[in-house]
């Protein structure tokens, strides 16, 4: 990732849950760390999230899920990223994710899962260390 290009992050809040404190605090922390942050707002479907990621040409998607719906939502996001040929986007999940679901989410391509108590700074560091340059943009 060339230093001069800002890292672009889509912070997304899928599902029916409205608890957006975490998503907002993280969005602001990433912005303060010099990243370009787009926050989707509440109740985004996987389709809306992936479309926004493609249109905004982001390097990172951060999904905030606290309601327990991650096993329904995250696999659909990952599938859609593949279908759009943008599965080089770094996908992170934050929120209340039981330990027993962590491996399955990593297996389908989630780069990291940030459970309650994660420091904002460690998320910033993780993104900087793992973000990939975006390849040739998808057709159109």
């Amino acid at each position, binding site marked *: 990732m060339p230093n001069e290009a800002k890292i672009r992050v889509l912070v997304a809040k899928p599902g029916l849950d409205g608890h*957006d404190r975490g998503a907002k605090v993280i969005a602001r922390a990433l912005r303060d760390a010099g990243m370009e942050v787009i926050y989707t707002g509440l109740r985004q479907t996987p389709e809306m999230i992936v479309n926004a990621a493609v249109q905004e040409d982001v390097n990172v998607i951060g999904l905030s899920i606290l309601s327990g719906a991650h*096993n329904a*939502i995250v696999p659909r996001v990952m599938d859609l990223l593949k279908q759009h040929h943008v599965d080089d986007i770094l996908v992170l999940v934050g929120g209340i994710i039981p330990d027993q679901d962590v491996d399955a989410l990593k297996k389908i391509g989630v780069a990291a899962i940030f459970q309650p108590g994660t420091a904002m700074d460690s998320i910033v560091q993780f993104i900087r260390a793992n973000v990939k340059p975006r390849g040739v943009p998808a057709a159109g």
Partner: protein
Amino acid sequence: MPENKPKPTVAESPISDVFEGRHPSPSEKEWAENTLAPTLDKAPEKPIGAASGVNLDEQGHARFTTISGVPVRRLYTQADLPEDWNYDRYLGYPGQPPFTRGIHASGYRGKLFTMRQFSGFASPEETNQRYKYLLEHGGGGLSVAFDLPTLMGYDSDHPASEGEVGKCGVAIDSLEDMEILFNGIDLEKTTTSMTINSPASVLWAMYLVVAEKQGADWKKISGTIQNDILKEYIAQKEYIYPPAPSMRLVIDTFEFGSKFTPRFNTISISGYHIREAGSTALQELAFTVYDGVEYVEWARSRGLDVDEFGPRLSFFFNAHNDFFEEIAKYRAARKIWYRLMKDRFHAKKERSWLLRFHSQTAGVSLPAQQPMNNIARVAIQALAAVLGGTQSLHCDGYDEALALPTEAAARIALRTQQIIGYESGVAQTIDPLGGSYFLENLTLQMEKGAFDYFSKLDAMGGMVKAIERGYPQKEIAEASYQFQRAAEANEKIIVGVNEFQIEEEPPHILYIDETVAKHQSAKLKALRARRSNEEVKRRLDALKKAAAGTPQASSNGNISQANTMPYIIDAVRAYATVGEICEALREVYGTYTEVSIT
């Protein structure tokens, strides 16, 4: 980071704070000069708990504040009270204005706080078992947690419900589920609180019909529906319709309730979620009480008499970590509400002046790390609520940050309440901390701060207008970010999180899988095959017609003709589902999307 420590630049005496903005008595002056000053000289004060010593002000002095950032003095005396301070004017007696010390003349001696544990998960069948368990173990009332599809007005088999059914609470689709939920529980003898907002009138209608089928008298049943849509727009974000029609639905329940269910609280004006979203204690107090003002304004503009619905308004506050700040918040809330109801709205009945409240310990303060420590946090928070005179209480499970509580976590939470109520002795004496210089000073600061916020909100044209401008949302987002920043800079110690960490095994948690969704969908399919779908349609059409009308209180003592409650009850009786009723209202009112602020 000692190398970053700003060099003390202060030249004046280290005891100057004793004299700034206050008039200490001669004896306090003498103490400050002859006892305090030499002590500070020998051992300067250090930030408490911040091992790395980073919480310093510009002069390099240790900074002491409440969790909300309000400066705290090392000692409070008479000099921290207003010069005209006197007992009768500022405190009064319990059960008498301004109710600083409580709303009951005999405190908890006549009636202990109700131990009301919030609970709901998976299917109504499973939650019914948990309710019976809680009641058998000494729980005094029920409190229903609904799942997200129910809170958002979707049936379990709606596409938007995928992955969410039964996860954050119990899934309720129709009257049938409500009958299962309260099976074997006598609704005339149990008080029930329901945390439901946008679809509150629908779930309340279901509760009323279950009660009716049990043979209970609506005039005798009691409980509370949360029904506080304003704090949904401000903090919790589970709204369906735009603000104006949502407010109209709320006022419909006020009007219906004051006529038909005189013992049911038709709203619980809630600061809990505002605080959980990251507000300060003062913001929680101010925004919540001002939400109350907004509801009263809307009800009055329908033509309702404040003394008709006023006694059925109840409140719900958070019980957070900062012990004295929380107690001050509850005491100030009672005083403020009395003043507003009496002076602003000219309520004449004493019942209308009383701020009655439920409280719940602060879920947001309970970390995932070393979760058993949360039992201690919850005990301290709950103690503050009791010392603040709460009418009912929920203690969180220690596993709050990880999942819904296991049975063991729920039992310890209830036991914590019992230990405070029965063992600690604090419930024997009314407002035992009243008269503490510190607490009285904090109470007055809270009161003043709240009225400052009220002036700003009045100038914006009320809470709905302020919400549309994003004002309370921005205030909360800023406070929330500042708190997180301070915690991560180790300015505030969170035991087990940024200090005193250990390697640990994850605890056993309650795990809810997708079988609940399948079970609920199968029940819905059978229900739709069994009931008269034509009758359901007829009743939903009648509801839509009422919903499109403009309700206006009549002078003949009847409720407004366009009040939606009777039509919702009719639809519920025909087994229309939560999703169908909310969809009918969506067709009339549309849905709301907020302008996101980050």
